[in-house]
């Protein structure tokens, strides 16, 4: 109804959680219920033993992302949720490419191309070779285009992992959570801490 669509962009959502069966579903349905596609989802350990870390990437407006993060944070086993634009995180995706060993052996130029693109061979067998590269989406995409003419047999890209540039990790926060009466910053959404920036009088 509004004539100006809010700007959509990639957001990196970082979720610190307990390690609990079923939590992935609880988090996933917060997106699917609103018919929002998850571009990428990664679960991994975090800097703290027993605390899990989700990295989720979606393309949405900030307003929607903020609401989603609050719904996620509401889940009992979720400790904390952050969201960041691509500029605010260091992020990487890993890709694997399988090509025929014969073909690249014939075409020496392929080797050079791969090196130029920062790829390295993980496995070299008689019948095929697997290359790996890590980087941003454009970089891993780029290599697909390069390898396609040489008969790319198989391609796969991992979910995105992202480190928050101005984060000091979760150790101090966790200690707060473990207290019965924690400080203000953990108990509420950090958007409130930004006060005036979010809520205009």
């Amino acid at each position, binding site marked *: 109804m509004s004539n100006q669509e809010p700007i959509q962009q990639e957001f990196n959502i970082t979720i610190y959680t307990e390690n609990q069966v079923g939590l992935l579903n609880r988090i996933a*349905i917060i997106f699917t219920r609103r018919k929002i596609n998850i571009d990428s989802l990664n679960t991994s350990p975090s800097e703290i033993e027993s605390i899990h870390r989700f990295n989720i990437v979606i393309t949405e407006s900030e307003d929607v992302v*903020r609401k989603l993060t609050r719904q996620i*944070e*509401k889940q009992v*086993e979720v400790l904390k949720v952050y969201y960041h634009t691509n500029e605010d995180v260091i992020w990487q995706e890993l890709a694997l490419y399988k090509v025929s060993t014969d073909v690249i052996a014939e075409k020496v130029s392929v080797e050079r191309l791969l090196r130029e693109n920062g790829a390295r061979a993980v496995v070299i067998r008689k019948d095929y070779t697997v290359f790996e590269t890590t980087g941003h989406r454009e970089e891993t995409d780029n290599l697909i285009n390069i390898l396609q003419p040489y008969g790319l047999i198989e391609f796969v890209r991992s979910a995105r992992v992202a480190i928050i540039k101005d984060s000091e990790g979760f150790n101090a926060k966790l200690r707060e959570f473990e207290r019965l009466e924690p400080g203000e910053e953990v108990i*509420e959404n950090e958007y409130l801490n930004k006060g005036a920036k979010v*809520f205009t*009088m």
Partner: protein
Amino acid sequence: MEVAQQEILTPAPAKETTRVSGSVALLEALIAEGVDTIFGYPGGAIMPIYDALYDYNDKLNHVLVRHEQGGTHAGQGYARTSGKVGVVFATSGPGATNLVTGLADAQIDSTPLVCITGQVFAHLLGTDAFQETDVINITTPVTKWNYQVTDANEIPEVIAKAFYIAKSGRPGPVLIDITKNAQIQLFDYEGYTKCDHIRSYRPTPIVRPQYVEQAAALINQAKKPFILFGQGVLLGSAEQEFKAFVEKSGIPAAWTILGAGAIPTDHPLNVGMLGMHGNYGPNVLTNECDVLIAIGMRFDDRVTGRLDKYAKQAKVIHLDIDPAEIDKNVKTTVPVWGDCKETLPLLTALVEEKQHTDWVKLFNEYTQKEVEAVIHKELNPSDGEMTMGEVIKQLNDLTKGEAVIVTDVGQHQMVACRYAQFNKTRSNVTSGGLGTMGFALPAAIGAKYGAQDRTVVAIIGDGGFQMTCQELGTIMQSGVDVKIIILNNRFLGMVRQWQELFNERRYSFVDIQSPDFVALAAAYRIPGKCISERDELQGALKEMLDNKGSFLLEVMVTKENNVFPMVPQGCSVSEIRLK
């Protein structure tokens, strides 16, 4: 520190344990949590728990419902009137799937429930075993928390968590699925410890004084402030704090249907009901106030109507315990996060004592217009068939507004909520967010268990009654005392009203036939009466209320009455129609 040293010197004595089954541990946990009533239905996968229950008959009152959905609604009714957690038992598979409607209802209306479902043996999980369903995944979207227990050792801690989560913060339903082996398994039971902390769960935000101060400043400057209150006031047991705030600030206050009764209906600053079938003044003046103070309510679309034309002129203060509610639907100027039991007194201390005489008068003028256009003829018809409104009015006169009113969903619900008098809090039990037909009869059973010394009157439509009328069996067997009024308009009235107003009277499958309700009640040995004449009404209501035990009164009302005022869907609250 001292404690630590002591521990080194004298080794902690081994905790005393007894060997008990998972089922016994569960029942002990319920007793420790103060549970007195369970609504449930047995079956294969929950048999060990029912077997243990056989020996707990003196401590736990189990009410055998006739359908597990009825169990959940009874649990909800119990929770609403008592303020405690409703407890429901069901077996695996179909027993568990029958809970889903009640869970969804409890989730959207923030009602604390703990549902225990039996599950097949752990080694059979995922094998499509007899009566196996993936209950955890089916119920995830409709529970605040759920968990599957496969080892009896987990039971005390998990049940403690379940109760803590269900009732703390913004309450909600919790489901614990217990595999049969865990119910049977013997383990070393160390006793029960209640839960008061889960590190990843923060039920109540810390109150931030600066926001309370900003809110007070806005309120003190306001010329036309307006309070909207919801169930949060009841859930926080903050009725006194709320009344103090309203009376000191002198601000008119209107309620969502789940907030009804937080302040008595006839309080001079209670200006009526919000929303689609709410009162005229509260809807229109939402778009004229300068400061809107929302307390424990979530701006449901039935309350706001068209959002982009909702209170755009107003600064919005939102008091809520759930951070996710702030800005969800209506952009907030000042969020006051926290339990309103805590925040309201802080706010009251800072607001100036005032009387907004002219502004309140404006509400009264709108009320007058509504009385003339709608209310008078609804409550005092002189000829023709009876109206739903006059039944409620006569009921008010007899109960003096002291009864618990449980409503189903439809026209009768809107009429009952609009016109019932609530002197006391926790008097209005209805399915608000989900609008679940079939809610009222089982919920009334639970409501009575939750408030044994109060009169409980269920007001139900001819359609909705037929959705859960098997619960008459529960009434018969338990002997619970519920007064049932069926307002029979021989239609699925609310849908018919929409078809009349918006579909050119194309009445598509809304003329519903009913059995002889009085005979149906009689089959369950419940006395009843059907009336269609105005001069029988008062006597029949008296007979119902005076009857020792349950009674079913069917009142034949006008077939094609419409509920007004009405904010048509997609319209702004100021476009509310009086006819």
